[in-house]
């Protein structure tokens, strides 16, 4: 085990030396991986911000319940109070509604309509975006004979949810394509490295080195490329957020409201770095294995 660790440390040293000897090309590699990773990460940033925006306004989604004249309000009120998806209940009796309407239409002094035509009503503010939950609540309410009509104001919620789903799908597709591009780029770089170290591979094979021993420094190189690229990508995302927020605060006075991007959380940043490392490892593994096989069978 001790020897195995020493072997790993040795391979890591070799990989670090190779990066050091090719510092400019290694740095270019970090930039390429960083920018490529940054594209889907920016999409993720956009989705996260849209999600947060939608979560701020989803509580304004309302259900209006119109009661039948003379019905028992207490039963409905009790039922509504028990529902977990309702954030706020506002009851407006028909007299107040009528006065409000008259005031709004400016017909308070004209007694054209003798009788108040408006019903008692409940206005519910929901705390969910889930269409399933909204439908369930509406179905429950429809069971009450005291209720005359229910008006659900959630069409925009559906649209937003669909847009978010579609955006996620687009970003996922884009990310998959870019990850393939990254594997090809890193793999090609590692392939060129294996050609540069062809003599070393040949000699090592001749004196009894296992493929794993030969592959190890290349794997570490791939991992280091991934780590550098991932860190660069994370830094780019942070820079984008910083620059955007700084510019947005400058134009806040002009447009009258504040737009601020919220940075991805630490876990997501770590995930981006881990994905980059994984891609670096995978690409170098595939490329080094193939190259060693070719050299071995040349």
């Amino acid at each position, binding site marked *: 085990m001790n*020897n*195995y660790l*020493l*072997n790993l440390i*040795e391979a890591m040293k070799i990989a670090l030396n190779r990066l050091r000897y090719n510092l400019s090309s290694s740095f270019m590699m970090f930039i390429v991986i960083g920018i490529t990773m940054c594209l889907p990460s920016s999409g993720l940033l956009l989705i996260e911000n849209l999600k947060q925006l939608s979560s701020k306004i989803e509580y304004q989604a309302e259900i209006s319940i119109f009661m039948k004249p003379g019905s028992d309000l207490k039963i409905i009120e009790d039922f509504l109070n028990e529902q977990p998806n309702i954030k706020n209940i506002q009851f407006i009796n028909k007299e107040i509604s009528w006065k409000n309407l008259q005031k709004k239409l400016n017909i308070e002094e004209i007694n054209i309509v003798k009788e108040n035509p408006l019903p008692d009503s409940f206005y519910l503010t929901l705390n969910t975006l889930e269409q399933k939950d909204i439908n369930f609540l509406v179905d429950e309410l429809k069971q009450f004979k005291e209720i005359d009509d229910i008006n659900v104001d959630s069409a925009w919620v559906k649209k937003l949810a669909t847009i978010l789903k579609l955006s996620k799908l687009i970003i996922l597709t884009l990310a998959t394509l870019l990850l393939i591009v990254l594997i090809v780029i890193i793999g090609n770089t590692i392939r060129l490295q294996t050609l540069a170290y062809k*003599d*070393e591979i*040949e*000699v*090592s094979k*001749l*004196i*009894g*080195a*296992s493929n794993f*021993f030969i592959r190890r420094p290349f794997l570490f190189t791939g991992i280091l490329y991934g780590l550098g690229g991932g860190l660069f990508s994370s830094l780019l995302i942070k820079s984008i957020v910083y620059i955007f927020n700084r510019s947005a605060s400058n134009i806040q006075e002009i447009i009258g409201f504040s737009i601020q991007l919220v940075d991805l959380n630490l876990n997501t940043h770590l995930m981006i770095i881990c994905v980059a490392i994984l891609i670096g490892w995978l690409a170098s593994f595939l490329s080094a294995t193939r190259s060693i096989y070719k050299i071995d069978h040349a």
Partner: protein
Amino acid sequence: MIRFDQVFKRYPGYQEALQNVSFEIFAGELVFITGASGAGKSTLLKILSSIEKPTSGTVIFENTNLNQAKGTRLNNIRRKFGMVFQDHKLLYDRNCFENVALPLAINNIFGKEAEKRVRAALDKVGLLNKERMMPITLSGGEQQRLAIARAIVCRPTIITADEPTGNLDKEYANEIMNIFFSFQQVGVTVIISTHELPNIPMKFKHLHLDNGKLIFKNQTYEQLPA
């Protein structure tokens, strides 16, 4: 220790490099394989060191059939050999110390033990004062000695050398040969391929190849210095 039994080797598109070669080498022997260019010396050494496999026939090394050795088993067999190649096969981006340390790393030997062994090997070939130099700065003879240091650093039981003095002048060639003889004297099996037999004051086995055929095999031949 090593037994060749009716070994044939044919490269695709070429005539047979080895034809019906059979011989035995015992532990601690000094063996010279001679023959003209293209006679099959290098091929024989490659098969013997398990770098290549014969087209037919059997090669037995320490009760293991080399034809069937693969993967880890093959690597383990190769690690028992100290190989010196005609073109040295040194790593020119690593210094002398690092070149010699490579087989130790392959055998999982690191740290102080590795340093001790590398220095001992370099000392043995007279290159201890050049351990931090790059191989490219060494003369041909020194490069060959460095290759020998790399071959012996893991204390192999067999050393094979493919024309180790081919590109050297007489003075360097004698120096190199003397290093090999010193290993044979401490019980290491030494197998050397060469164009001509050197003048050596000791017993050795001589295998002569001509167009891939083993012409004769003297079991214990002693040649006195001229």
